């Protein structure tokens, strides 16, 4: 049985000793996993908002904003010895939980996914797989040894990407 590292809302963490990375209840939030091919280096963030620039200058949790969290994931992976040119990404989340809340501000799931992809693009990290959008919450876990991302939903069952 593998050890599991659980990542809370707006948190991020690296896997150690090939422990599973897990985060639960992703709604409009996006779970981002960055890992190194051919190794067990992996890290996950539970991102809640696109960018810190629309925020105030208060102290925030490091995993909250896509534009802060993703560079931090890379920094932590590199500090552990990962090779940045071999990093890959998988993402899941960015749902719209309530259909009627259709105004610009509330389509935060969609905006989160866009912001995450922009960051990955900027850092030249290829996006290998994604399961985003829709209207279902997701709980995800990533196995750093197989690089499989398992996604569980209430209504659509479980799948692996």
């Amino acid at each position, binding site marked *: 049985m593998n050890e599991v590292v659980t990542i*809370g*809302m*707006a*948190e991020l963490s690296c896997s150690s000793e090939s422990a599973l990375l897990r985060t*639960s*209840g*992703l*709604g*409009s*939030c996006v779970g981002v996993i960055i890992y190194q091919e051919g190794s067990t280096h992996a890290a996950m963030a539970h991102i*809640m*908002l696109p960018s810190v620039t*629309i*925020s*105030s*200058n*208060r*102290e*925030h*949790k490091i995993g*909250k904003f896509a534009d802060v969290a993703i560079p931090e994931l890379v920094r932590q992976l590199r500090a552990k010895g990962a090779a940045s040119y071999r990093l890959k990404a998988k993402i899941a989340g960015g*749902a*719209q*939980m*309530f*259909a*009627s*809340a259709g105004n610009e*501000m*509330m389509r*935060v799931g969609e905006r989160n996914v866009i912001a995450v992809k922009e960051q990955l693009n900027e850092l030249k990290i290829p996006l290998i797989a994604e399961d985003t959008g829709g*209207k*279902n*919450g*997701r*709980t995800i876990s990533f196995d750093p040894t197989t690089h499989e991302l398992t996604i569980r939903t*209430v*209504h659509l069952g479980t799948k692996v990407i």
Partner: protein
Amino acid sequence: MKDFDFIHSTHLDVLQEIGNIGAGHAATSLSALLGRKIEMTIPEAAIIPFDQIPDRMGGSENEIAAIYTPITGDAPGSVYFFSDAIQSNAVIQQLTDPLSESSKQDLAAQYGQSAFLEAGNIVIGSYLSAFADLTGLQVARGVPDLSIDMAGAIISHGLSRLLIQSDVAICIDTHMKIDGEATVRNFGSILLLFDPESFEVLFKALGVEIDE
């Protein structure tokens, strides 16, 4: 953005009292709807880190049925009326004809969903109108909507606006149950979240001094 250290227990006491009256109205309307006496807990008003909110809803992965309505006007925020998914079926069975087994009036059925949505809409409506009366604030509610999913995923929707500015939330929550029945968790709970911009407006309307 200011820190929220200026909010003292007095402020929270006032909010709790408002929650108490609002939830009282909500329980009365749910009671009229179900034809059963409804009991409620004394609401709790607290400033808590946002990541503790799912715990108040039975945990991040707890499957709930939730009605969400945005609050607009003087004090923007969000209201949720929610039940554990299993409990929501009990609410629905009280609302609809429990004898007509054939139509399967539970949460899986369209009919059950609209019954639950309507109950939530009435509960939220009476809560907010009591809130508006007490505070003298103009608050309107948006279109209510239903989602049946994990609590963490559902709450992230209402949190997104709030979290731009802060890692803490003012939250008022109340839990209701049918009188005489064993206490069940999350039979019908109401959760109010206010956006940070609402705090000062709210306390000013309540006549509570904010010493900064």
